[in-house]
């Protein structure tokens, strides 16, 4: 991906989160996404690639997207490539996942259960309150391969605000959402690998310091003090990922699907 104006990019877990300053070359239209947020979704093309760009979002959304995306890469959550857009109207650009459809409960039992479990663990750690069928993309690779499941849109996560995350402590948001068709046992039976990765990351303080620092450097929206708060809180939440997942499932199952 092109870095304009010698801008920065951060190579993290073999994925690169770029920051672009210029406006997208070609706005091609508004994607008909039934989004529930205030963001404006647009489809743009850059270097022949298509992105869905959220504009008009506030600082906490951008911080949540950036930190959440970097954490997703670390934890192995299937997530499309992404870019920060930093011109007059800051935004978040997510690579258009080709031939993907929104989540449908009838397809739940055909989906890769590890992908689904990973999303729930990620949501528990970042305190995502906006997981519904429009924010999960499903791809059919053909043959007998279970459907691949991509996580998108972490903008409404509690990870977007340092003090909010401190306030949340080791709890999960009471307004978390659940995907229809997903069973608790499916998630619990397939979460072992990501919980192990979370445990390892919890012991790697320097990596988490670097991750939060880079999120701050890229977004220019996180102070040094906030970076420290994020680091401490995320280390704590990663260390307690299994408990958070259990609490997240308790909350979401009791509330039902949106």
């Amino acid at each position: 991906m092109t870095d304009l104006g010698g801008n920065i990019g951060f190579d993290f877990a073999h994925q690169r989160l770029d920051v672009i300053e210029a406006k997208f070359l070609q706005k091609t239209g508004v994607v008909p996404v039934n989004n529930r947020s205030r963001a404006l979704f647009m489809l743009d093309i850059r270097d022949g690639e298509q992105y869905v760009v959220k504009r008009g979002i506030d600082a906490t959304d951008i911080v949540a997207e950036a930190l959440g995306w970097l954490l997703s890469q670390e934890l192995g959550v299937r997530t499309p490539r992404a870019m920060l857009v930093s011109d007059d109207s800051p935004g978040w650009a997510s690579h258009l996942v080709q031939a993907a459809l929104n989540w449908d409960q009838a397809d739940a039992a055909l989906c890769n259960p590890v992908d689904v479990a990973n999303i729930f663990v990620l949501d528990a750690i970042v305190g995502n309150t906006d997981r519904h069928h429009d924010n999960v993309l499903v791809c059919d690779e053909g043959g007998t391969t279970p459907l691949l499941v991509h996580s998108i849109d972490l903008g409404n996560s509690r990870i977007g605000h340092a003090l909010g995350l401190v306030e949340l402590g080791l709890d999960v948001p009471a307004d978390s959402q659940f995907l229809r068709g997903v069973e608790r046992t499916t998630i619990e039976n397939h979460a072992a690998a990501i919980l192990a990765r979370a445990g390892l990351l919890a012991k790697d303080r320097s990596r988490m310091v670097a991750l939060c620092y880079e999120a701050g450097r890229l977004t220019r929206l996180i102070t040094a003090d906030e970076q420290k708060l994020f680091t401490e809180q995320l280390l704590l939440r990663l260390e307690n990922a299994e408990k958070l997942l259990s609490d997240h499932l308790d909350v979401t199952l009791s509330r039902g699907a949106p």
Partner: protein
Amino acid sequence: MTSAAYRLVHFSPDPATGIKYPIAALVSSSAGTRVEFVSHLPDARCIGGADRMRALHRVQQRLTRVSSFSQVPSFGPYVTFDTPHDVPEENLAALLRKLLTLYAPPHLSDADTGPRRKSEGMKWFTAMGVSRFVQRGFRPGTGPGMFLKNIPALEKVSHYTAGVHSLMLMEPIFARPQFEKDLKDVARRLAAYALAISQVSGPHTQLYAYALPGLSPKHINEARRILDFTHTKVVNVDIPRERDDFLGTIREVAQASLVD
């Protein structure tokens, strides 16, 4: 004059270009809400390749489950529902025929295209973690089908699990436009097996039709009615008890062969 309404459903293989293909119509009439599909789908080469074709077929499956005319689901950026158009009910059939007969002469049916039943079934077995116990393509006269060697005219069965004394022959069914045709095919196939296994000695053989997630109760009931005379168990995997019993039996039968 009774009024009806329809909404065309479009597939946009590339949202950037704005090109869209009508793939179905959601119809509201005095008979209720239903979905009518186009006579033929655009070729994979027209819509950008096999991945989009798979998405299109999955959209068709999802459309079979749409039951509300006013509250339509959101399938993502590749699918749009037009605004409703009113039409006199007596003109509805002719109009839909005109709108939905597309792309190729009607005699060139593509009803058999789309995801293969056996692939969809194996996709589910894989997601459920039992694919190692399930084999593809049961054939009479070979392997565990040796006891049927004198009846070679039997067709292949999509999946099977073989134990030492037990055999499970399994056919998947799922929601898609050609469901009726699928069901007839499964019934014909399994009816032949039901007759054959009653004539020869061999392992205890149970026939199954397993309804993949999302098949409507109406279709499930239809499957039970049609397959009843073939002594086939119809498993609705959306019902946890039925699903767990089915998966448990697969494990038991397969593991018994390992133990023995």
